């Protein structure tokens, strides 16, 4: 930091990358490749035929339950009755279009250190949205910041991907993170349940668990994409500094030493581990997206490891 830096305004969140750079031709060619790959992964399945949690009149067997008077006699499973002597009614999954909600964290921390996380997040959302649109799913993109929502209306069909691009390009990181408040608003506004892809760095002073739990408790199927920038664990600092939180402005006097930096690295690793461990315990699909990893590789990992599309 030079002498002139003392007189410059403190710049905590840099401007976002322009759309022309973010979704260039190369990006769009990769999207086509990902769409082809997704078709190969889900080959043999019908478009728009997604299993819902509703049990009903579909053709896909889901489960049995005891017969109660009043049930349709045609739904009794007579084979089971012959083998076990019990009257059980066959249940079928109700088929419906899947709703995919992309919840993008647009807080200032996402734009920290050159907006690498925010750019990576927007590319991931665009990619996965394209896969969804290509599978005729209902895709909704929402930007969260300071407990508020900015929304791209629900759309379907891959021709709408440019609308998604424009929406994502218009977003700027800023403000604080309050996942729980934002997601409560989201749940209240969207009665149609579905897959909720939460893309965030989970730097929530209130705790990352609250936001995930809101989705779980409100009946959505949460899918967590955790943006990771390992450079934040190894800042190029030394000596006496005043550490300022880029979102909250919270300050802390620190004398940075190699020992402190080691501890910071360990704390960061622990934090990542906490998020992953929590998701695993709650059976929430979790994907760590490192900013240094190409976005298409992350998307392929998401497609192959499952959880994103059933």
């Amino acid at each position, binding site marked *: 930091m030079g002498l002139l830096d003392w007189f410059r305004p403190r710049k905590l969140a840099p401007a976002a990358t322009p759309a022309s750079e973010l979704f260039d031709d190369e990006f769009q060619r990769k999207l086509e490749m990902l769409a082809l790959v997704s078709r190969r992964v889900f080959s043999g399945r019908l478009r728009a035929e997604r299993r819902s949690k509703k049990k009903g009149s579909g053709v896909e067997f889901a489960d049995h339950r005891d017969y109660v008077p009043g049930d349709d006699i045609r739904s009794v499973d007579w084979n089971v009755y012959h083998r076990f002597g019990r009257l059980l009614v066959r249940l079928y999954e109700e088929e419906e279009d899947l709703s995919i909600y992309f919840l993008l964290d647009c807080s200032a921390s996402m734009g920290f250190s050159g907006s690498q996380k925010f750019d990576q997040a927007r590319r991931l959302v665009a990619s996965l949205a394209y896969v969804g649109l290509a599978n005729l799913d209902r895709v909704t993109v929402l930007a969260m910041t300071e407990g508020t929502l900015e929304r791209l209306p629900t759309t379907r069909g891959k021709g709408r991907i440019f609308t998604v691009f424009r929406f994502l390009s218009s977003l700027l990181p800023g403000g604080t993170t309050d996942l729980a408040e934002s997601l409560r608003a989201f749940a209240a506004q969207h009665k149609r349940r579905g897959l909720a892809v939460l893309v965030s*760095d989970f730097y929530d002073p209130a705790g990352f668990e609250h936001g995930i739990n809101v989705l779980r408790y409100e009946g959505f199927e949460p899918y967590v994409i955790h943006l990771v920038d390992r450079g*934040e664990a190894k*800042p190029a600092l030394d000596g006496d500094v005043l550490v*300022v*939180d880029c979102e909250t402005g*919270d300050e*802390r006097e*620190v004398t940075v030493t190699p020992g402190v930096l080691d501890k*910071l690295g360990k704390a960061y690793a*622990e934090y990542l581990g906490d998020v992953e461990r929590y998701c695993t315990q709650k059976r929430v699909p979790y994907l760590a997206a490192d900013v240094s990893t190409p976005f298409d590789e992350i998307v392929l990992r998401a497609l192959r490891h499952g959880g994103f599309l059933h």
Partner: protein
Amino acid sequence: MTFAGLPLGTVLGVGLGAAAATVLLYLLKLRRRPVAVAFAPLWHRVLGDRDASRLFSKLRRWLSLALQLLLIALLALALGDPRPTNALGSGRNLVLLIDTSASIQATDEKPTRLDAAKDAARRLVRGLGGSDRALVVAMGAVPVPLSTMSDDTTDLLVAVDRARASDTRAELGRALELAADALRGLPNGEVVVLSDGVLAAPPTTPSLGSAKLRFVPVGKSGKNLAITAFSVRRYPLDKSRLEVMAELANLDSQRAEVELSLWGDGAIVDSERLVLEPGARLARFFPDVGGARHALEARLRYADGHADALPADDHAYALVPERRRAKVLVVTPGNTYLEAALLLDEYLDVTDVKPAQYPPPGAFDATIFDGVAPPPADKSGGLVYLNPPAAGSPVKLGKPIKGFGFDTWDKKSPILRFTALGDVQVATGHALEPSAGDKIVGASDAGPILVSGTRGGRAFIELGFDPRQSDLVLRPAWPLFVLNAIDSFSESDTSYLSAYRTGEVWRVPVPAGAREAELSSPGGATRSLPVEQGRAVTFGEHAGFYRLTSGTADARVVTEFAANLSDLDESRILPQKKLAVGGENAPPPVVNGGGVRREIWLWLIVAVLALSVVEWITYHRRVTV
């Protein structure tokens, strides 16, 4: 405790002012560099355990302030230059006598004893107290002060560095006299002798007054070989041939096999191996030495090639005597015996003239007046009078005497070298009455009959009888006497030509009329010498070949000569651990620790520096932060 620098009030003022400024600076909050981070709670998690030690952090801050105040106090105290009260005005006055004799060049101490002595002197100088003063003196044959009586250690250390060894003895007596003079009237005088103890004993014990004598011995072993004499001569009757004599000494307690080599004009001309018993002295002659025209050098070393402890006495130098034809004028009515004697030396250029023809043209090295004594002309050289008449005789003629002979004579006189005069019979002659300054070379019971001396700056030899009135002319002593007399004038000396000895005043003959001469020493340095009574005078300090340029601007004359240590006592380099003067052994001096002076401010500054270094290391290595 007394403040020799700033007064106590000023010290307190400076200290308190600086302390107040420091405290004020500590009260100001340190402004830290703001740095944005993505998620401050991570830092809280890292620094959470540090909060537990916040009290310790505050304590460290106060500790840091206390350290700064301590530094200020030390610096302020240093400005005051505090000293023990009893240290003021009661300093010592030291005279450091550093031995610069030949033996101090011994290499048993590495690199030399002189360096060991100088190291000891430096320790003494660095250990001087704030009120101490010292004088550094080089103790050779003549004591030479190298500094003034000073308390400036820098000047004194420079003076110690300037001490150089010479090829002379160390005259302790003279040095003590100089030290006594320097310390006269000064309190707490101490004379410190830094030497190997190989010193010329003072003839009388000089009084040092109240000053105390101290001794710092240097040296370890006395293993040494030496050339104690070295000469070359031309054979008297064959001046084309040379004979060389070297005297060797083994000053070790063990038998030594040595190699003595003779070098002529830079090339080796002879060499031989010898065995020297412990303490033995051995004279070796090299007859009929060839291959040397100008300079000769003898070198001595152990046969196995290694050097002894003192290289200075392992070399000796000599110049081959000049061989030139002497021009002799004989003023005689006719003397067959005289002419016969002069025929014996082929290197004589003899001119015979009758008394009436005197003076003939030309210059001569010697003139022989046979029975006559005309006023001597210029360029007549030395004068030999044989039975001169009273008128013109340089020595007054006494009573006539008859039937006498040489009852006494100077056997060491070069005029009578190789002669036997004991039974010479003389019929008639005169007793001589020499003047003051004349030298009686031979005498009968009736009085002097052979006298040498100088008249009007011209040397003469006068024989008080006619040789033909004696049987001297029939003896071998007659031509030897004539030739010796001529040689003594022509300076073509055929005797052993010993070089000058170092540690003595050299008086080198220069041509008449020269008032100053320039001497080139073996090291190449040149310096002017004064000329007194026809001789250039200097004090010889170093062995080797010298070159003396003298004469007038029109006629420069170059004289070369050699100088040798040739001092058996100085070659006995066994170091003495005690120095006894006046029957009392001199104790060692009191040496303060390395670099310790009784100046406390130095230590205060050192403490400040040490504390600053510790603070710097602990801060920048993150030990205390």
